[in-house]
């Protein structure tokens, strides 16, 4: 799990182009949206695309993302449970 969290942090930085940010700057328990990293709906779309491309997870309902993207840790748990690649 911890390895997946680290991998996810790196992917988030790369996909969302969070210039100047390092994996250790992201608190895996902090909210990704609103407070915390302060991401928005376009970032949510980028994360949905990233999950499909890298882990084979296709979200049938975009509103599922609201729960899944609560934090990096929750995201990692969801990926571990549902990944197809």
């Amino acid at each position: 799990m911890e390895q997946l969290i680290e991998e996810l942090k790196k992917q988030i930085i790369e996909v969302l182009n969070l210039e100047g940010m390092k994996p250790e700057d992201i608190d895996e328990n902090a909210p990704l949206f609103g407070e915390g990293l302060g991401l928005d709906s376009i970032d949510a779309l980028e994360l949905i695309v990233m999950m499909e491309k890298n882990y084979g997870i296709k979200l049938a309902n975009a509103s599922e993302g609201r729960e899944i993207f609560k934090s990096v840790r929750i995201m990692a748990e969801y990926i571990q449970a549902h990944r197809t690649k």
Partner: protein
Amino acid sequence: MKTFIQAISQISLQEPLSDQWFSNPHVPQNIFNESIEPDYKRFLSPMEARRMGKLMKRAITTSLDVLHRSHFENVDAIISGTGLGCIDNTEKFLHAIIDNNEDCLPPTAFMQSTHNTISSQIALYLKCHGYNSTYSHRGTSFESSLLDAFVQMKVGDIHSALVGGHDEMTPDYFNMLGKLGYWKKDPFTIDSLKKADTIGSISGSCSLALLLTDSPNQDALCQLNDIELMYAPSITEIRSRMENMLIKNGIALGEIDAVVMGLNGDIENDAVYHQISQNCFPNIPVVWYKHVFGESYSASSFGAYTASMCLKNNLIPPHLLYNSVARSTNISHVLVYNHFQNKDHSLMLLSKI
């Protein structure tokens, strides 16, 4: 209503956000040339800039810089010209379509791949709710934008406008244009460009923001008297349109102190300018600028910039002088003439304030 160019800001092959090129230019050494990037963190926070491609960062930075130089907080209109739009993002999106088998497409590259992203993003950033438009007319995109702002100012619909010319050159697009003979095949010098005995030019990426206003302050660069666009005119028609423009503005041909032309070292491109020069301006200094800024769809905006700088400084620096006609000691009126592939032609008449 008179219209004035209050200030201009640029990012190109030259020192960014600076007029240093006018006295001390970087001489391009390569056929494919990248822009010199400024420190964008001075203008945009990392979170603001993270979704922007290079062209978007350049467009917003030059816009912010020209507003700062002009002491304007906002404008009535934002009008941009771009031949290719954010082509880098377009390419990223197209590559993603191929690489991901038309699935899993990233939204950011798509959103920022359209041509009108430029004007709209500037407006969002400045919170400008006024007129907003983008012209994409290949080599006369900038002039189309300037004409729109000029006409709206003449009829009193707007009193200030941010007019831009923004284009980037990516390696892929450069290679494609190279196959069409756009670029020199062999190493070049400024003298060989001037000689123009082969096809092709040198590339540039350029972003220019210009503030047009009817209420200039003391730092304004010059007055924009007139601007015209023509499609596929004959030499006789060009001459006639030039003469009419001068008559309309009460300026005699002999009062033109310099003609700025888009000479770029391509034998076919430059032949048109030589014809115009011989037929219309045999004894007037010809100024060129593409040997300093390179060729791109928005390069003609740098013709207006060059003319503005000559008028403001009352000077034609030797490195910009194309022919050997003696320069006037008092630069009062400058005509800018550009053409794109001998199809789209433009005239801009600028005067000292």
